[in-house]
């Protein structure tokens, strides 16, 4: 009787895609090892019964060597072996390396069914696998699938019940590799293929000189593309909608509302020159939706589009190789670029992705650097929106300050923290070009996640601001921090409220700076401080969960210290 089904396999063989196919639960999948850092669970209807399916993190072996692998192996042992079925997912294009885990699973007495995924790609690459032969040798059901298109999944579901433990001698590591060599010789046939354009590109991107040129090109193009799409959506779509449609509607509805009391203040906010100004009015129906849908969402869409594309093609691990040298100086290795890039979208998934790093020390450094020096898309969009009109120089300036901060802080942390950071050891996936539908689904999933998480907090934030401002409750806090903010950072005391709201959401906080009439210098200092100082509450909670209380306190003290030093220094250094 099967009570649970586990999906297990090497990193980056498409476990999450198979999982989505089996359960209908959408999870993020990308073309690099270690996308799945959280355990996903879903259900599959099998013969009228609802069975739980668990997607385990990728593992090369049952003799775990990393924390993600340990999790996978320990979960596998939760139930009795006769109560589970293990679907071992293999990459057909690299059968040899994948068979190690398969042999270990069979030897360990698990009821295994092998799923040779990516069969279409194997075909393109001239790899022919004799499924029948493989079944004869291994004595377990073997099914060839292509999870991206769904081919073979039905057969896989039908045959899950055939999974049964078979006896096999336990081998030593070396015997096992020899055995795999024999299996491959019998069941796999390689056709000779000439180097395709794709393979040439794969090579070029990891060579020292050509790789760096390509990386510079890709990063530049990605950045330009994000701005192009983001601005395009704002200028062609959201701005016309807000200004030509929503604003007249709001003005008509509130036209007869003569008494501008509490409710007017709450919903519409302050009128600027007798009109609604979406950037400055600060009302629940004006600035709140405008910040989220008119300023931030367009960039969320464009950023995740470009990121998802790079992820699915498989470029990111190559970038990791090229950046390994630099990141080593910060106590990290090249693969830390993945959490950093995810953090540019939103710090929360960025910090979760630090689980791909092996040691606690690396995870502390990476999480701290992300929460201090990596601005999320909502914050960046607001920086573009507010600071951009003074010229690109200031926007670039913010990035330069943050980048230098990462380098300086990373170097210091690497020097003072005890222990050492493990070396880089990573499999580089081939380039893949997934169908657009897959990309679109992933993009939709991420945007939906953003809207669900952001909108309530933004509304709550604007509500809180308005209530606090209306009843002058901020005055107390403002009074306490005014000497610091005014004397040291050179900001007006009203900015205290905005900096405080930064704890709730960064985009709203920057939005609050808009009506203050700050000079360029003040705006520059304020947005930099918002980026560096306390992370937003969602990030803070994740930091807490991932690092534990002690390290969170350390990280927080670091953030406060850095903010005070940085704010003071910028105020002294910038003359205009």
């Amino acid at each position, binding site marked *: 009787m099967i009570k649970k089904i586990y999906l297990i396999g090497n990193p980056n063989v498409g476990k999450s895609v198979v999982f989505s196919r089996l359960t209908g639960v959408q999870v993020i999948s990308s073309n690099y090892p270690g996308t799945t850092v959280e355990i996903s669970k879903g259900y599959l209807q099998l013969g009228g019964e609802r069975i739980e399916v668990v997607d385990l993190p990728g593992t*090369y*072996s049952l*003799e775990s*060597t*990393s924390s993600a692998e340990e999790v996978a192996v320990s979960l596998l042992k939760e139930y009795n072996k006769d109560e589970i079925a293990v679907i071992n997912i293999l990459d057909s*294009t*690299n059968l*040899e*390396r994948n068979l*190690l885990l398969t042999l270990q699973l069979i030897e360990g007495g698990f009821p295994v069914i092998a799923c040779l995924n990516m069969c279409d790609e194997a075909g393109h690459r001239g790899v022919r696998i004799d499924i029948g032969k493989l079944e004869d040798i291994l004595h377990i059901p073997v099914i060839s699938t292509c999870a991206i298109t769904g081919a073979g999944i039905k057969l896989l579901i039908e045959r899950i019940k055939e999974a049964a433990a078979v006896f096999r001698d336990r081998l030593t*590591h*070396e015997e096992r*590799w020899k055995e795999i060599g024999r299996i491959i010789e019998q069941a796999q046939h390689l056709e000779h293929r000439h180097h395709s354009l794709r393979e040439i590109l*794969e*090579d070029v991107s*990891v*060579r*020292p000189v050509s*790789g760096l040129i390509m990386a510079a090109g890709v990063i530049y193009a990605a950045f330009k593309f994000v701005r192009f799409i983001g601005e395009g959506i704002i200028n062609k779509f959201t701005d016309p909608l807000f200004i030509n449609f929503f604003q007249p509607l709001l003005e008509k509805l509130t036209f007869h509302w003569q008494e501008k009391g509490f409710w007017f203040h709450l919903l519409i906010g302050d009128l600027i020159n007798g009109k609604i100004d979406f950037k400055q009015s600060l009302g629940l129906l004006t600035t709140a939706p405008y910040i989220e849908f008119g300023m931030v969402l367009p960039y969320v869409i464009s950023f995740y589009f470009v990121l998802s594309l790079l992820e699915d093609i498989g470029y990111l*691990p190559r970038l*990791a*190789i*090229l950046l*390994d*040298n630099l990141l*080593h100086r910060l106590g990290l*290795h*090249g693969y830390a670029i993945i959490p950093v890039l995810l953090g540019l979208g939103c710090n929360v998934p960025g910090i979760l992705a630090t689980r791909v790093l092996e040691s606690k020390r690396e995870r502390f450094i990476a999480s701290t650097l992300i929460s201090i020096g990596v601005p999320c898309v909502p914050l960046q969009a607001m920086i573009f929106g507010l600071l951009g009109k003074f010229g690109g120089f200031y926007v670039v300036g913010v990035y330069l300050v943050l980048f230098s901060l990462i380098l300086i802080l990373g170097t210091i942390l690497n020097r003072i923290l005890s222990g050492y950071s493990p*070396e*880089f*050891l*990573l*499999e*580089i996936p*081939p380039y893949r070009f997934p169908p657009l539908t897959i990309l679109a689904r992933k993009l939709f999933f991420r945007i939906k996640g953003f809207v669900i998480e952001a909108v309530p907090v933004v509304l709550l934030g604007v509500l809180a601001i308005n209530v606090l401002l209306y009843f002058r409750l901020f005055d107390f806090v403002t009074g306490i921090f005014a000497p610091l903010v005014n004397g040291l950072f050179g900001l007006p005391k009203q900015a205290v409220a905005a900096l405080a709201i930064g704890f709730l959401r960064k985009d709203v906080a920057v939005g609050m700076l808009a009506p203050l009439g700050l000079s360029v210098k003040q705006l520059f200092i304020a947005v930099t401080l918002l980026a560096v100082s306390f992370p937003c509450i969602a990030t803070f909670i994740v930091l807490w969960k991932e690092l534990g209380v002690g390290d969170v306190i350390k990280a927080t003290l670091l953030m406060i210290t850095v903010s005070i030093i940085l704010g003071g220094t910028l105020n002294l250094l910038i003359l205009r």
Partner: protein
Amino acid sequence: MKKISLAQIKMNRKAKVIEILGGHNLQNRLMNMGVHKGRELLKLSHIGLRGPVVIKVGRSILALGHGVATKIIIEAE
């Protein structure tokens, strides 16, 4: 034929693994990814002076930190 580390040979050279120095954990991780004694590999790239090394083993491409590469002793063709 001489025995040197993977970090020392030039790019585009084929080599055979003779020995893997370093701890049990590293040996196991490499073994799990298909790098073990007697295995043939091709060095694809080496970034900078002390940067990572990229190799091709069987059908996989692996990136190894410089420290790892110095621990893989090989026999170059």
